[in-house]
């Protein structure tokens, strides 16, 4: 009955394993590949740069006891705090922040950006619904809440969509700081302000735990690190609350998801509605984890990709009317809601 949902859960778990422990699995492959020419240029901090020399073990950004991430080979670097793993270039915000600080030339970033655009163009924001490890953790929290029979808090759609302004604000501040500290005159601030968003991201405290490493959960060495640590805890609290009491509220303000969402309306994956079939039962709006109601509201045929949609296809799955909602991939139909009975031949 819930085939898509089950498939999605399996995919989420598989990608969690791949992203978090992929480094172990593909380690040998990576090392053998080192001598060969790569289509992706290596992006390392220039020698002598403060940002690399200062961040040794035990500094604010590294989880204690962690070795540096395996970099260089695309697609890798799922998260800075995911010490042993990472096969797929994932966190685009981390990528931008880091390279803005290093002042890496744009030509070396182009292959990475092209790959990111290609994936977004094909699948839109499916990243959030099907892959993102943080989203998977959040879904697990939701699962726990359901098992404990706690009522879900439902936020109105407008509130949810306006949360994205918070995300854009955080993103703008983080990228501006990254750019400024990359300038030679401000280089001495690098050791405190490096990757400002990563320092408050909930993944800072969550991701090291996957590698069974104690996260750097208390860094009160200076005023700035203290501030960031406290902020990180607050954001983590917000994250847990958002997933525990609502469904995927966090995803409305996650900056990575927001960058993904720009491609959502033009993505290859399209959600379709045949309005004549709809009897306004509200199943789709009720099941949407992002709390979107457009699919329910619209009265004409069309493509209903929305910026906030995470492409979980739950609406297609729960719709009781045959052929009403469907998913297409570049105009080719992937699947539609079918009645549970087969046509008797």
């Amino acid at each position: 009955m819930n085939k898509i949902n089950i498939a999605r859960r399996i995919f989420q778990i598989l990608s969690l394993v791949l992203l978090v422990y992929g480094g172990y699995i593909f380690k040998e492959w990576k090392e053998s590949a080192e001598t060969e020419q790569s289509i992706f240029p290596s992006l390392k901090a220039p020698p002598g740069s403060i940002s690399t020399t200062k961040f040794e073990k035990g500094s604010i950004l590294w989880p204690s006891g962690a070795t540096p991430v395996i970099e260089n080979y695309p697609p890798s670097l799922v998260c800075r705090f995911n010490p042993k793993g990472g096969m797929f270039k994932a966190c685009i915000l981390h990528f931008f922040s880091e390279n803005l600080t290093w002042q890496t030339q744009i030509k070396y970033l182009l292959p990475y950006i092209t790959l990111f655009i290609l994936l977004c163009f094909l699948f839109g924001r499916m990243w959030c619904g099907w892959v993102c490890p943080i989203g998977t953790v959040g879904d697990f929290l939701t699962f726990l809440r359901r098992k404990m029979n706690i009522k879900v808090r439902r936020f109105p759609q407008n509130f949810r969509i306006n949360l994205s302004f918070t995300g854009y604000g955080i993103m703008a501040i983080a990228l501006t700081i990254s750019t400024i500290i990359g300038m030679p005159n401000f280089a001495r601030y690098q050791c405190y302000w490096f990757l400002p968003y990563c320092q408050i991201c909930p993944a800072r405290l969550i991701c090291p735990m996957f590698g069974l490493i104690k996260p750097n959960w208390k860094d009160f060495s200076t005023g700035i690190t203290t501030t960031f640590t406290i902020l990180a805890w607050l954001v983590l609290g917000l994250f847990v609350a958002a997933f525990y009491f609502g469904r995927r509220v966090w995803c409305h303000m996650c900056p990575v998801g927001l960058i993904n969402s720009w491609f959502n309306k033009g993505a290859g994956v399209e959600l379709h509605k045949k309005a004549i079939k709809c009897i306004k039962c509200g199943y789709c709006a009720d099941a949407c984890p992002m709390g979107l109601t457009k699919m329910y509201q619209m009265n004409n045929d069309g493509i209903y990709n929305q910026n906030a949609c995470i492409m979980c296809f739950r609406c297609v799955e729960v719709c009781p009317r045959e052929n009403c909602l469907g998913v297409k991939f570049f105009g080719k139909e992937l699947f539609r809601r079918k009645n549970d009975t087969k046509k008797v031949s």
Partner: protein
Amino acid sequence: MKRFLFLILFLFIVFCYGSSQIDIEFEYPSISGDFYVAGTVFFPPSAVSTSDNIIVMDTETKSEIQSKITVQENWPDGSILSAEIIFPANRQKRTRYAIFYGEDVKRKKSFSESAVLPTVSFITPGAGKTIEDIDISVGEINVRVDRSASIRYWWYIIPAFILIFLTILRTLRTIRTQKT
């Protein structure tokens, strides 16, 4: 669907095209046994930061050849301008050699000239005929350098912009269907 398959194919071609490779040519001497091959190679600015980023490859067996690289000159940004490369060869094992360089290669095999052997100097025919040259005035000396290595990453701009353009078109279409 076809156009996207084409696009992916195009990206693949772009990725495969243009490695930072310099082919080497030299004449085998009439002596038997090992001998050294030596020569000076020029590199584009910002391409190679240390001598470890230069390797000599046997293009037929695709294996690295042990080599000794001595940096001779540096660019103003600290990257290598020219280096002298010496590596051993043998007449019985005739093959073609090439030099690879860049941040993404790493030299593993190095050697020191322990034996005294005859030396043959090589020329780099491909590197001489560069597509794009720049002139840098260093006093009264003009140095002509290949810049083609860095250009290959700019190729990525084409698929990226095509994708962005398609995304915008499709977004406009989606918005239009949602409005009517």
